[in-house]
């Protein structure tokens, strides 16, 4: 291969893209709309089949260097993994329930303990689920696989999450880099070992302006509070009981209401900033992550454009708006009918309205999530894949098969703990 010299455009013409995505948006929509309906009538049991269908669709339509990926996992495996996870989690949950009933120290600490234990277990599940997905991914007649200790990963991950929280997100790039290094170091395509070359520091530098813009309004708010509020007067006002508390705060701190208003506005500004920059952030992470992936001599570069990610979100927002409009019209029509229908009154009507409300809520929740998956998530997959450029592909001719299919327990745990991915 001689692409290093010429890049994508060579003298003669355009080089075909290394990775193509052939899936039709319409088939994906159909998959999800049908899936949403079946999820509704099966109270969610259908999710194992839907998840498998979705993965089959995404994998088999992703063509890397002329050959499509293949997903060989089955819904039954997911169901069994989930049942095993339930068997493991029921005693754990029962233990926490009993501990919470204890009135002593154990009871008071039980919430914290449960949070920590489930956090570690959730990360364990994330790692094991990745292993399941990799070993069910076939490319050119060979499977991917993953070594490494899921417990070690889980403990590192929880440690990193805590550090990220304590540093208000500044440690996040290093967390991503470190965890990804561990995952990729233990990832193999046949006998071709993976690794991760992305640098956390570089990601930090790129993300820092966004972090500052989101944090600045909050910092200003904290500054204003420290500067303006007379803390002793405030504490006194609060200590005197609930009656007329606002009046007493006002006398001690005449500017208190202004500071609160200012703080609220600044928090809104910060949240708006975060929402506006979120697609940029997502594109930046995806680009950085893909460009750090390596398999033996194969190097990957991502040319993902931020603009494309924004257009995916615009599509999501317009569909969601349309859906809300239609749902609103139907709901007001139903309410009008319920009000005008003769003979509909008393308890029967109340039950009917409550029931309709619940059904409406379920339809809305499933609707929005379907739209999100069929717009943003599909686009991110497609854009992320199609923007990749691979070099060193000649290594693909000599990879040997190793690795076995792994158990679906991780997926089951991830599902039961709600930490599942694609």
């Amino acid at each position, binding site marked *: 291969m001689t692409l290093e010299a010429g890049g994508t455009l060579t003298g003669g013409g355009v080089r075909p893209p290394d990775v193509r995505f*052939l899936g039709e948006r319409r088939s994906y929509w159909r998959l999800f709309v049908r*899936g*949403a309906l*079946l*999820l509704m*009538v*099966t*109270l*969610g*049991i259908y*999710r194992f*089949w*839907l*998840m498998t269908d979705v993965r*089959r*669709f995404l*994998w*088999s339509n992703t063509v890397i260097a002329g050959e*499509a990926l*293949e*997903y*060989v996992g089955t*819904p039954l495996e997911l169901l069994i993994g989930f049942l095993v996870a*339930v068997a493991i989690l*029921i005693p754990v*949950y029962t233990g926490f*329930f009993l501990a*919470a*009933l204890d*009135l002593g120290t154990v009871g008071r600490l039980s919430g914290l303990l449960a949070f920590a234990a489930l956090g570690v277990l959730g990360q364990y599940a994330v790692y094991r689920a990745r292993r399941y997905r990799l070993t069910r991914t*076939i*490319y*050119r*007649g*060979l499977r991917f696989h993953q070594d490494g200790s899921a417990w070690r990963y889980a403990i590192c991950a929880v440690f990193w999450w805590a550090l990220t929280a304590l540093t208000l997100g500044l440690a996040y790039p290093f967390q991503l880099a470190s965890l990804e290094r561990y995952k990729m170091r233990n990832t193999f*395509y*046949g006998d071709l070992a993976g690794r991760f070359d992305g640098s956390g520091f570089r990601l930090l530098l790129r993300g820092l302006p966004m972090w500052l813009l989101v944090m600045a309004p909050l910092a200003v708010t904290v500054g204003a509070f420290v500067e303006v509020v007379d803390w002793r007067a405030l504490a006194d006002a609060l200590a005197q009981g*609930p009656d007329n508390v606002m009046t007493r705060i006002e006398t001690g701190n005449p500017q208190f209401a202004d500071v609160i208003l200012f703080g609220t506005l600044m928090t809104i500004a910060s949240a708006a900033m975060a929402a506006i920059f979120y697609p940029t952030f997502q594109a930046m992470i995806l680009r950085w992550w893909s460009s750090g992936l390596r398999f033996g001599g194969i190097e990957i570069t991502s040319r993902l454009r931020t603009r494309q990610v924004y257009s995916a979100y615009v599509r999501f927002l317009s569909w969601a708006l349309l859906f809300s409009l239609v749902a609103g019209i139907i709901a007001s029509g139903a309410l009008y009918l319920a009000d005008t229908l003769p003979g509909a009154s008393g*308890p029967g009507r*109340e*039950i009917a309205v409550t*029931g309709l409300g*619940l*059904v409406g*809520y*379920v339809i809305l*929740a*499933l609707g*929005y*999530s379907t739209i999100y*998956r069929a717009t943003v998530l599909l686009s991110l997959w497609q854009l992320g894949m199609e923007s990749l450029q691979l070099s060193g592909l000649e290594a*693909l001719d*000599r*990879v*040997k*098969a190793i690795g076995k299919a792994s158990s679906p327990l991780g997926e089951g745990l991830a*599902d*039961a703990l*709600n930490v*599942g991915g694609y």
Partner: protein
Amino acid sequence: MAQATTGTSSGAGIYFDGRTSARQEVTVALGETSLRIFAPAGTPLAEWPYDDIVGLSAPGATLRLGRRGGATLERLEILDAQLGAEIDTRAAYVDRGGLRQRRQRASVVGWTIAATVSLLLVAWFGVPAIAERLAPLVPAAAERKLGNAVAMQMRSILDSKRMGVAFECGNAAGERPGRAALDKMVHRLEAAALLPIPLQVAVVRRDEANAITLPGAQLYVFRGLIAKADSADEVAGVIAHEIGHVAHRDGTRSVLQAGGLSLLFGMLLGDFVGGGATVIAAKAVLQSSYSRHVEAAADLYGADLMVKAGGNPRALGAMIGKIGGATEPGMTILLDHPETKARVAAIERVAPPPAATPFLNAAEWSALKRVCSG
């Protein structure tokens, strides 16, 4: 060779042998019982019996084939539609039209719906039945412990003004006569009820007309209820109703029911594409249906207890009629259902004793009215 005489077709394919990732352009020949794969030079690479061949997911028009059972990951890809169709007719497990898959999917959907129906039946009939049988088996000490845990949570929710100890009425000097009147009323009911565990009754500073019972015979009467009552018997009626919950061990039962439901719906059914929403909805409907029966049973118990204690059971009906109309949303523990009239009618059917004695005299009643004045 047999191939030549039976007129089998052949064509081009791409073969991966499952041992290395090398891509091999091959010739595929369709024999009578098996498919043979040859290297360009004519060397045979593999022979797959048709019954062993399975179709796999692939993009667009490509036909991707593998071996059934998956002992190896050998793959053969056919791009030629004509050849693909011929393989499809010979191999039973190749399913290009998707008919087999559709049939399989239909049976999956059918059975999942059946499973859902059976799950709902278990939730509707099974969970309350199990809870009902288990609740009496819970020892009183465990029930009391459970009650204390629930009480802690309940108080932190109810005591929204953070009054701490003063949240309970009847402790200040001016409130003690009211507390004594309440105790007199409770003792008369308790003596008639013959409960296995001692009652704990408290009046709390909440303005809703309501009362709640926690596991372990802990009873909270809101001061709003006393304010709304026109006689001591009406308050006694509501307390008798709540004692019904204690006697039926409804608190413990509802904890067991809630636990059972969370297990059924929260664990077995999970979350994908907001499937959780469905689960929450199903739970809400089921839980409200449980409480309907429970309240009706407590009404009857309360009316009977009033009779046993020599009081007028109609007072309970009168009180329910009064607060039924004014039930605040979100605070509907006593009356979380619309059929107030039907409940009152059921209580009216319980015959009052020939000579009902009021629970408190006028002085005691006015003291009870002031139990939260201090």
